[in-house]
């Protein structure tokens, strides 16, 4: 009995474990290793010589790419810009998601599922299509562009282009990630006990006070887990700046993409990826720490 249940354990956990060790853990380690190497003359990598003979001096392993990363201010700037875009997207998503999540949480049960379904459906459509839709809306010939520029013309201002701008990137980011904020917020708000609001009202709290001191603090864990789900993918996004942004709107993701598919500098691309991973880990740690202790916040 004991051996057969151990056999079952082994049978069901070994195949996924083996697959993920080979195709997730190993590639991640390879990436770390690559970041300590030098690029080859024609892309790819310079050879390493880890032979007993010439150990220390010319092993081919260096921290050169890391030094390069910290030596040029432009990389710091791009990281900073990516963080700014991620933070802005997160804040705007909270502002847009909160009223909707609140309304859904306070609707009748039947209606609730329908409303959630309506949030999930558009996000089931292809990611590129959702970005492409904004290319149409923000394009120079679109109704929106004409309208905005006509208004600007009335005030004697120069026309603006909406597409291929930081504004377009931000809209794309919000559009793609909004459901990730709505769902965890709703899951949180739906669990609130309405008795607390009634108690607050009996104690003379007005509508604003009931929100500020009852609903809002209770919803913070939902906000933080939603924020992690928005902030992290935005930080590493390359497709949205690539499609909706102009040449100056590149983010970390675009920088990484260029190292692998453009200039073919794999070591530097790996270094950038590791920097991004570290940033993601910090953010994830921060948000999960913030989301945890519910009673801490008063």
């Amino acid at each position, binding site marked *: 009995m004991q051996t*057969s249940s151990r056999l*079952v354990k082994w049978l*069901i*956990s070994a*195949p*996924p474990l083996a697959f*993920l060790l080979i*195709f*997730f853990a*190993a*590639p*991640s380690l*390879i*990436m770390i290793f*690559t970041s300590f190497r030098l690029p080859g003359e024609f892309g*790819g990598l310079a050879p390493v010589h880890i032979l007993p003979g010439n150990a220390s001096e010319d092993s081919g392993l260096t921290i050169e790419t890391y030094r390069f990363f910290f030596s040029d201010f432009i990389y710091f700037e791009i990281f900073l810009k990516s963080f700014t875009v991620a933070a802005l997207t997160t804040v705007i998503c909270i502002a847009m998601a909160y*009223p909707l999540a*609140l*309304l*859904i949480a306070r609707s*009748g049960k039947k209606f609730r*599922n329908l409303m959630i379904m309506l*949030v*999930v459906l*558009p996000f*089931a*459509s*292809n*990611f*590129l*299509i*959702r970005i*492409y*839709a904004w*290319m*149409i*809306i923000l*394009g120079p*010939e*679109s*109704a929106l562009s004409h309208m905005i520029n006509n208004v600007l013309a009335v005030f004697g201002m120069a026309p603006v282009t909406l597409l291929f701008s930081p504004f377009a990137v931000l809209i794309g980011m919000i*559009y793609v990630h*909004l*459901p990730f904020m709505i*769902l965890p917020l*709703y*899951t949180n708000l739906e669990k609130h006990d*309405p008795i607390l609001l009634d108690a607050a*009202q009996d104690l003379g709290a007005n509508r604003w006070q009931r929100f500020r001191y009852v609903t809002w603090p209770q919803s913070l864990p939902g906000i933080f887990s939603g924020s992690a789900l928005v902030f992290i993918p935005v930080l*590493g996004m*390359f*497709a949205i700046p690539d499609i909706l942004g102009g040449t100056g709107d590149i983010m970390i*993701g675009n920088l990484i*993409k260029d190292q*692998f*598919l453009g200039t073919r500098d794999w070591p530097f691309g790996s270094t950038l*990826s590791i920097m*991004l*991973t570290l940033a993601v880990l910090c953010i*994830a740690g921060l948000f999960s720490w913030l989301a945890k202790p519910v009673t801490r916040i008063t």
Partner: protein
Amino acid sequence: MSNFRAKQSSSHRLTALWIVSILVYAFLYIPLIIVVVFSFNDSKLNAEWVGFTFHWYEALLHNHEMLLAARNSLIIAVSASVLATVLGTMAGLAIHRYKLKVLPVLAFTPVAMPEILLGVSLLLFFLQVLNLTLGMLSIIIAHTTFCIGFVAIIVRARLHGMDESIFEAARDLGATPWQTFWQITLPLIRPAIIAGALMSFTLSIDDFVITFFTKGAGEPILPIQIYTMIKVAVTPEVNAVSTLLMLLTLTLIIIATRFDNSMLGKS
């Protein structure tokens, strides 16, 4: 309870909530509606409505590259979702039943991290270590890697809500672990497995970022084809492909949630 709530909160505030919510729904839906509407528009420009046509859909039927890309993407999505469903179900069961340390981390991290990191590390791994020519196989492996986590999450959520005593009862009645699995566990988690499979299929056929890094120079793949059309020359054919693809994923998602709606509340 909801009646009570409706009385409590003043209608005034509810109206404000409703207005904001409707605007948010409009924000979510208007872009997609525009794509669908323009796919029937008799004009080369995505600017204003000219007249109704099926022209762009007909053009698609004669676009061999696009048809080939659709076929390739289907092959990839079917292969990846079968692999991910088998491995993900195992992972979900194992994580639920045993105190494992490594497997949960390996299964759930690819779901949570930016896609580009997985794409780039797999690119390095395929080229540097395996010396593999990038193509359909590398894409199938890459898609499987991130779909395993999604299947495991759905299966585990299903197991989580189940009464453990049913397994004990089976054991007490002398069922071997093997019998318990085939006759009790598997039928119980079947809806989650089907939902996981449909979810994987949708994720695979839609995935752009990871496909972008693990594709070879050879076969055309649907999302890459769409990307090229968007970047190079936008024609209303993109609208037609988009509409068809939306229809497909919409159907799959609706079927998936019929089987198991744990993926709605969970994220």
